[in-house]
């Protein structure tokens, strides 16, 4: 149920994001979802790719600082309040969300949200109990 996310440290310098993405392109790694968190000095590129290990290795080989972490991918109704409903479940269970990013997948009516919960296992359990569909890694990669 857990999904591996790759995070890359990016200095706030011209061409760094391009460099990271070109590294992945050369390794023929397709990105399913991504987000960038930024501060005035640095940014963190977070992404989901079908082969997280290959992605990590390629980036590390190119000199990037990489970290793998567990995230949760959930299906959300593509309608007003869809995401709010999911967050309410977690909030009621007193579970913090560190960050999240969303995308709309092809060939489906649903939106996909990638969640980084303070406690991944508890997050999965709570969402499941509330009847939320949590996507398995394979399903996500095929989208």
């Amino acid at each position, binding site marked *: 149920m857990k999904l591996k*996310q790759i*995070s890359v*440290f990016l200095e706030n310098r011209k061409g760094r994001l391009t460099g990271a993405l070109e590294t992945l392109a050369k390794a023929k790694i397709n990105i399913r979802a991504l987000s960038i968190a930024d501060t005035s000095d640095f940014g963190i590129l977070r992404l989901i790719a079908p082969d997280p290990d290959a992605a990590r290795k390629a980036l590390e080989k190119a*000199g990037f600082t990489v970290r793998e972490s567990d995230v949760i991918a959930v299906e959300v109704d593509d309608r007003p309040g869809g995401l709010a409903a999911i967050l309410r479940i977690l909030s009621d269970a007193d579970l913090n969300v*560190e960050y999240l990013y969303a995308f709309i997948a092809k060939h489906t009516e649903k939106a996909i949200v990638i969640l980084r919960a303070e406690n991944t296992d508890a997050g999965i359990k709570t969402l499941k109990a509330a009847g939320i569909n949590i996507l398995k890694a394979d399903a996500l990669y095929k989208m």
Partner: protein
Amino acid sequence: MIWNRQAECMPVRELESLQLQRLKETVRLAGENVPYYRKKFAEMKIKPSSIGSLKDITKLPFTTKMDLRGGYPFGMFAVPQSEIVEIHTSSGTTGTPVVVGYTRSDIDLWSEVMARCLTMAGTTENDIIQNCYGYGLFTGGLGVHYGAQKIGATLIPMSAGNTKRQLNIMCDLGTTRITCTPSYALYLADCAQEAGLMKKIRLKSGCFGAEMWTEKMREEIETRFNLMALNVYGLTEIIGPGVANECPHKNGLHVFEDHFYPEVISPETLEPLPDGETGELVLTTLTRAGTPMIRFRTRDITSLHREPCKCGRTLVRMARITGRSDDMIKIRGVLIFPSQIEKALLEIKGIEPHYQIIVTRPQHLDEIEVQVEISKKMFSDEIRHIEDLRKKIETHIDKSINLRVKVTLVEPKSLPRSEGKAMRVIDKREI
């Protein structure tokens, strides 16, 4: 204006014979009473009689900051503690400080040389001096204080900081002379302008020092405040401010060589260099009683000039300091070794020893950025954790070496690796 015409305009021959007599006395005093020199002179078989002429000073050993630290705390003292009336320590902030002791006669000497400096800037008993050098163990504050008292000028012991109050006092009391670092003078100018106080300021001159500065900075200070800006030089190990000061002709700083004997050496060969050549300044105290200093290597880069000066002083002039012969950097008046920052960094778990120090002077005050390479261990996918780490490094550096820096995390291997001498410091200040 000249404070002590007899001393400052003494015929060169007379001056040299006075220097020789005082040098012999200093060698005797140091060899007999300072534990460090007693041992050193015995090893090198140096006696007061070894000094037959001023040139013989080259027979004497150099003294470095490290040597002084070795004698911590009282190993460099020539008199019993009962005769010491004041103590200062050098501005290096970590490790062992250098302790310097002043007898009553040393304080008189300090007052005398600082009175000479302030008089060069035109100060008389009719002036109000605002002293913005820090009071305390730092010698700047009290050095100026003693000199102003000797002249009988009205001294305002402001000490450093609290810019708003500095400006209010300056305007309300009609300050005519100022003493501070040149960068602080420019900062004051900015603040005065912003507050619309420039028209109320009555400054006529100032003695600026304790850090490197340029002719361009002088022009700016002079134009903005409409005053005469003179360069003052000194260091704690010798006495504090008051070793040398510029006269209004601004062609080098007159060294008070009846009290401090200057040499310029090559920092590589350690051989003395002829007048006019640029090298490291070495100073020997000729009249200090508490902590006499033999051939102290200042690490400051300058040259000596003996052509007569229009002011009538016969004292040798040293050029404006243009650099240092070691990798020390002076930040906000305090000397820092890059290695001190490295040591503080490495005390934090998981930190790689790859860093670079970038010194800038936005708005006239020194700022330091320490760039540290992030390692896999330090990296998190959450901004919050990385920010916490960054702040932790900043706090740790501040705590261990008392230096406020801005830490920036950079990508691994993005900083230049050293081949031989590391380029740890990038000084972007225009000095």
